[in-house]
């Protein structure tokens, strides 16, 4: 049994699975149910000044029959009175002292507003604070959420104000609706953040109804952009986490968020530098019970690898993530089709023929049976065939021994720069 206990900037939980600040953490009833189901922590649905919500709030994107491949919402922060939330946070923390309860906060970018709310939530015993600089809809129009999260100076300043008052660790939750998330992450660190969490949701319009031409979702025939999350956003989130993890100036723990649906996704985020993860859409799709498999799967994975403690994997894959210019130009792989396993759907052929490098031939053997073969000399090792192949093990990408030593683009450029007599740059 591996040690799954987690510590994100001093906020401790029995396992790395927290519920993200969202509808699942709207009330004490829900958070307590989640803890009973096994969740290690919860970031309470964002507290702030009173708001009004609309009805018709969520929409999801199905892909080839798979429901909730992506999820979109236009719900705002909590619409329950602050006092009620504080009372329930207190009760929850009392019942579950070893679980992490983090308060998500969003107020106007004013020092006194931040000081006031920090004091009030810390009084009821939260383990930490998460500043919501990420919500892209509604609140942003009022200068909060992603509107302040998109301006590095505002992120820094507000973080600083919170830190002036806070006794507990402060996590700054970042918006992905920005060109380079490391600039706002750096600003949070400059402001004194103890950790950053990412990603909040991505600006989105889930769809348009083909008959009514209404947006999906719509509120009485009118729509507004929402925030996108769920499995579809995972690669975007993972890249942002990894970018921050390998950034020299962002040296605070990261809480990973974005499309995490199972223990495998959690391992990926943690390998790429997250100290823990937050989940929302998967719970909204299936209920709190999914955490049982998340915990068990993670534990079995670590046991299988002989890893005693979850903390050992945090950031372990970050050194493997770099810039394109550092990739080895002389590394070569080619596709190899295993005809014993291949079922002859020919998807690899048509994908390669129409959209890649025309190197998979459809052939017939002596007895007239069809088979597929890769012309290795023309294969660029793009992976497309193995991606579209529906059968495990039918296509392997095989490494070909290179005649040249490894050399990246950056190394190549450096070598040429030192040899001024010859400028080989084909681009110029």
């Amino acid at each position: 049994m591996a040690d799954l206990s987690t510590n994100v900037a001093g906020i401790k939980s029995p396992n790395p699975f927290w519920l993200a600040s969202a509808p699942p953490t709207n009330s004490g009833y829900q958070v307590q149910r989640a803890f009973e189901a096994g969740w290690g922590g919860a970031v309470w649905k964002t507290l702030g000044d009173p708001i009004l919500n609309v009805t018709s709030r969520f929409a999801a994107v199905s892909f080839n029959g798979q429901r909730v491949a992506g999820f979109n919402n236009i719900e705002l922060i909590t619409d329950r009175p602050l006092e009620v939330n504080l009372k329930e946070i207190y009760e929850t923390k009392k019942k579950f002292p070893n679980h992490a309860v983090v308060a998500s906060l969003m107020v106007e970018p004013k020092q006194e507003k931040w000081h006031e709310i920090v004091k009030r939530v810390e009084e009821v015993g939260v383990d930490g604070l998460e500043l919501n600089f990420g919500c892209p809809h509604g609140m942003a129009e009022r200068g909060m959420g992603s509107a302040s999260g998109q301006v590095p100076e505002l992120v820094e300043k507000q973080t600083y104000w919170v830190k002036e008052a806070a006794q507990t660790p402060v996590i700054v939750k970042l918006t992905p609706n920005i060109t380079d998330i490391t600039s706002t992450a750096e600003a949070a660190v400059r402001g004194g953040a103890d950790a950053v969490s990412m990603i909040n949701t991505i600006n989105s319009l889930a769809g348009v109804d083909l008959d009514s031409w209404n947006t999906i979702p719509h509120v009485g025939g009118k729509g507004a952009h929402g925030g996108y999350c769920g499995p579809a956003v995972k690669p975007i989130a993972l890249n942002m986490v990894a970018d921050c993890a390998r950034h020299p100036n962002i040296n605070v723990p990261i809480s990973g968020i974005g499309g995490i649906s199972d223990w495998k996704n959690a391992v990926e985020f943690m390998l790429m530098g997250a100290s823990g993860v937050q989940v929302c859409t998967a719970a909204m799709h299936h209920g709190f019970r999914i955490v049982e498999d998340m915990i068990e799967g993670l534990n079995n994975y670590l046991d299988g690898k002989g890893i005693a403690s979850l903390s050992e994997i945090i950031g372990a894959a970050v050194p493997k993530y770099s810039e394109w210019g550092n990739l080895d130009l002389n590394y070569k792989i080619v596709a190899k089709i295993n005809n014993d396993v291949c079922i002859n759907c020919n998807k690899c052929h048509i994908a390669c023929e129409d959209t890649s490098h025309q190197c998979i031939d459809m052939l017939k053997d002596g007895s007239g049976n069809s088979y597929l073969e890769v012309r290795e000399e023309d294969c660029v090792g793009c992976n497309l065939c193995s991606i579209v192949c529906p059968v495990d093990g039918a296509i392997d990408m095989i490494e070909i021994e290179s005649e040249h030593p490894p050399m990246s683009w950056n190394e190549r450029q450096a070598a040429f720069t030192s040899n001024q007599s010859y400028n080989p740059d084909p681009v110029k």
Partner: protein
Amino acid sequence: MAKSEMARISLTDLKRNFQEVEPGLTGREAVEEANRCLYCYDAPCIQACPTGIDIPTFIKKIASGNLKGSATTIMSANPVGASCARVCPTEELCEGACVLNHSTKPIMIGDLQRHATNWAIQNEQVLFHKGASNGRTVAIIGSGPAGLSAARELALLGYKVTIFEASDKAGGLNTYGIVSFRLPQQISFWEVEQVKSLDVEILTNTTVGKDISAEELQNSYDFIVLAAGMAHVPNLGIEGEELDGVYDAIEFVKETKTKQLTNEFVGKNVVVIGAGNTAIDGATCSVRLGAENVKILYRRTQVEMSAYDFEYEFAKQDGVEFRWLTQPTKIIGDENGRVKAIECLKMELGEPNEDGRRRPAPVNGTEFMIPVDAVIKAIGQTRHQSLIDQFNLEQINGVVQISETYQTSDPNVYACGDVVFGKGKGEAMVVTAAQQGKNVAYAIHHQYEKNSVTA
């Protein structure tokens, strides 16, 4: 009768017994199944379909919600595609070729085809428009799968087509010959309407050779297509065949599709002679008419029977009993001329004969009697010999001889479907007939274009 069969068969509501057995897919099921299709390139299912339906494409269209397009893809390749969705031996054709047989389980292509064509039927879609007239006329004899298919393709190519149909309704085998619980008549009628919508004229109750002569057709039309199918079940050649209660399986099935269902079989004992698909139809229709016991008598064994495996399984589920190596020798009647028993002889298999099946031979002294109330004959079908003679076509034992381009010995007469179906030439399937009809249309068009160029 076992409990499960009790639930399947009602003795009081016979009509219910003849409703389509297989429930169609729901919209959700169809989309899920469609999404499972790999959308193979150069897919083997297409190769395995005698009409070459672009199966991955029609399935993709179900997944995308383009059901009209899906039905159009199906029907453009196969003018009787809605019927074929129900009657094709898919395990032996498209589904048997599905690449997923090698990894998980094959796509339910037949059910998906049925789903898409059902949509077109329910939404009263007209999927095709006739081609610009080229001024040529074609007479087609027979409105079964082959005739309809030829007519549809010829109409699309601009020919003025007239179909001569001896029966009261068009559709041939699909309308009259396939049991309702597999293929309801309305499906066949929709396919007929699709063809009629292309200005194809169908003259029903019109028998060539009686109501109009072959010569008249030859004089009035540029081309003739003989697609008359086969005729009745031949005689067994045994005593008692004329008795009351002896039926021709083809006629027997036809009556269940055209008349009020009779309750005269309720509680009765029935034997069916033969073990082809028509015999299965006769047997399962008997069960559905309330027969207490239904036996299939076959002089060879399960190995030699020509019924599809799924039909055999279906009959067994219906409680039909199979008596292998059993040759009827005499039908015995009562004083009123009604069947009361059948005398049989046990057989054994000897050496294979010319068609490769082992020849049955009687075992002396093994005569036995089965008391029965009805005997249904299903030992094949005879040919429309006189019709073939009227056109003076080259033939062997009633099988019209054709060239590779379906041309008969008369260059303006083409033939397709069961009239050209000879022993050892694969299977007489609806889908094969449909493809032959298409091929005839293309052959006629080729001949016409060739003549136009030389003229």
